[in-house]
């Protein structure tokens, strides 16, 4: 049964990825183009060395903004869809009692918050030209570390939440569990260093629009994944009850 759920998770992830790509193309690409235009105007006016300016393009903007974006978003979404299906397979009948569609929706909402929203509050998505190339190593480490903290906090909060629910009921127990998660990630977010690397003159509006687009892509992807996978999984599970792998 796990294998069949995994395949379906990846296929639904692929569909969700195509929808997210459409959103990214319409709402995200104009922001990337503007940011690159800003970057180029800066490097022309500063003109530090000539080696950097005439760097040959390895991949054209045309390819980056179409096939490159499509490949990146769809591979990301299909992979997360597969991992999502594995978490779903584990959670089914173990966590919550809301049926497959309810579980899928709940897990997708949690994944959006835990994997994107919370780490993104500390280290938000940045357009080209925001971010010092010299700190990429440190920023990458801290980004993934924050992601790890968020996932670990969610695991702790869920296992503690089950005890809270047993002792103080579903509503209050769930609130306590969520509160525990928020306390842990808030402390981590407070302690983690921040980077102030937007160059002088970079449009605040452009930065805002870029980040809203980045959030929108994830909302589209997780909504599609959570709702479509739930329906697909429920059909599969009801047709094959009890399971024989």
């Amino acid at each position, binding site marked *: 049964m796990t294998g069949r759920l995994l395949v379906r998770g990846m296929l639904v992830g692929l569909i969700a990825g195509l929808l997210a790509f459409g959103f990214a193309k319409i709402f995200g690409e104009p922001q990337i183009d503007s940011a690159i235009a800003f970057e180029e105007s800066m490097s022309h006016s500063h003109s530090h060395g000539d080696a950097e300016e005439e760097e040959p393009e390895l991949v054209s903007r045309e390819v980056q903004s179409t*096939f490159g974006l499509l490949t990146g978003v769809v591979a990301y979404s299909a992979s997360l869809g597969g991992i999502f299906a594995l978490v779903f397979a*584990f959670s089914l009948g173990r966590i919550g009692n809301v049926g497959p569609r309810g579980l899928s929706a709940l897990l997708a909402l949690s994944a959006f918050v835990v994997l994107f929203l919370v780490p993104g509050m500390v280290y938000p998505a940045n357009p080209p030209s925001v971010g010092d190339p010299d700190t990429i190593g440190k920023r990458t480490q801290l980004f993934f570390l924050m992601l790890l903290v968020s996932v670990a906090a969610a695991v702790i909060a869920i296992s503690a939440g089950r005890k809270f629910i047993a002792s103080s009921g579903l509503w209050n127990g769930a609130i306590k569990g969520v509160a525990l998660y928020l306390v842990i990630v808030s402390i981590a977010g407070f302690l983690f260093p921040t980077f102030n690397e937007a160059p002088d003159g970079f449009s605040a509006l452009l930065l805002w629009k870029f980040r809203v687009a980045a959030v929108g892509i994830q909302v589209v992807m997780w909504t599609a994944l959570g709702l479509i996978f739930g329906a697909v999984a429920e059909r599969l599970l009801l047709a094959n009850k009890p399971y024989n792998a």
Partner: protein
Amino acid sequence: MAYSASTQTDISIPAIPLGDILPWAIFGGLLLMLAIYFVGAEQGAVAVFKGMYVHEFVHDGRHLLGFPCH
């Protein structure tokens, strides 16, 4: 909680045994995380392959999906 009863009618689905999940989780999970690594971080701070082609190809996706890019 009257409504919760109606969502649960004939959807009492048993848990999938851990022995069935584990092999898929290990092999599938690792491969899928590797795929995410290539979209999100390859040829940025760390690199498996030399050059910048992977980085440049998924460049726009990496920015818009919120990974540190360069």
